[in-house]
């Protein structure tokens, strides 16, 4: 899966399933502060990522993932 495909898949589920406004989806957007992703949303993102990318996010690996761009990087690294 290319980085473009990862970005497209993530953006699509953030907009369609987590219902984040499309205008807020930017590389530098902070997951918590800008996108409003809370701990319960994160539980659902773990489920969705497992369905789309076939691996389970480990919360401890997410400690340095603050922005959307870093989230794309994290997924890219995990599936390579």
């Amino acid at each position, binding site marked *: 899966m290319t980085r473009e495909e990862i970005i497209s898949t993530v953006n699509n589920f953030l907009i369609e399933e*987590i219902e984040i406004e499309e205008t807020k989806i930017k590389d530098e957007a902070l997951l918590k502060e800008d996108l409003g992703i809370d701990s319960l949303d994160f539980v*659902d993102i773990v489920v969705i990522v497992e369905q789309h990318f076939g691996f389970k996010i480990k919360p401890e690996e997410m400690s340095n993932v603050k922005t959307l761009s870093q989230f794309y990087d994290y997924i890219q690294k995990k599936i390579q």
Partner: protein
Amino acid sequence: MKRVVITGAGIYSCIGKNLSEVLESLKTGKSGIGIDPLRIPYGYRSPLTGIVEHPQLKGLLDRRMRIGLAEEGEYAFMATSEAFKNAKIDSDYLENNEIGIFYGNDSSAKAVIDTHGIITEKRDTQLVGSGAIFQSMNSTVTMNLSTIFKLKGVNMTISAACASGSHAIGLGLLFIRNGLQNMVVCGGAQETNYLSMGSFDGISAFSTRIEEPTKASRPFDISRDGLVPSGGAATLILEEYEHAVKRGATILAEVAGYGFSSNGGNISQPSDIGSIISMQRSLEDSHLKIADIDYINAHATSTPQGDAFEAKALDQLFGNVHTPISSTKSMTGHECWMAGASEIVYSLLMMQHNFIAPNINFETPDEFSKNLNIITQPIEKKLNIILSNSFGFGGTNSALIIKKL
């Protein structure tokens, strides 16, 4: 003691998705019963059920609010939205006033079973998602509605089998009457999915008149062969009388009395004595006499035993005055946890529009129902006082009396 009135009502059921659709069905004796094909390969004796359309909540509620709602919670949201609108309660009022909630619910089976399925497959509890816990608990309806509507008063679910919705109204009455709350949302909700009723079907409680679904629910008829499960949700806004007057609310009826009892006997077999005690208590509580009751909305579910016990009880109390009786379950099927609340909504509609909805499919009486004045066709009648019965497994009984003001 304070007086308690109904200032709003909402309904979402197999005979209509709002008050006006349900009114039309009640006036014409329309059945909401059909076949759920999923039940046949799953191993049910009977695929008969009330057919309830699932509401589309996207656009009405945000994601966080939607994902905590199990099926019965979705129905309860629809019914409660209509009830608040009916009571002229808007979001500003909800934000700035203390309103309580007592809602009847006694299962959320699909949510529990779906969660179990995911954990069994994935062997990982984290993959069930964040909504599963809020859908799975018995208090799913009250925890979700209180969040969605920003309710700040008493907040709990009443689980009392098929009398849940009725007891919820009874408790709302007691809380307001004793000055603890000015306004309480009361109701009952019932899931209808095929996963939720298998164990009930397993004790041969359901009708197997599969060739004629709309004739399967036939309370008091000699050829009745079981109940038809059904569901949806019904909501009533109970309010302290002076509070309602001050607010300029339209008063739909007074909740005049609540009677309760427990049979203290068999887990599934009803009792005429227990039924009589609850009805007598509701009459004493409302300071009314047997002859004052204009119409009885019977619990009668179309089971051979249950209807016979209720018929005996009704004959003993009301036989001399020939009070008109019908079971709206003949049209709706048995709405179980919801029934005690929905049947107050149905009774309220009859009171408002001066008619009695028929006990459809009552063709031939049995030795117990032959003495009762069972209404088989819709009739025009002014109704000032109505008694509604609800009985449940474990011998829980509830009787409510509503009165026109």
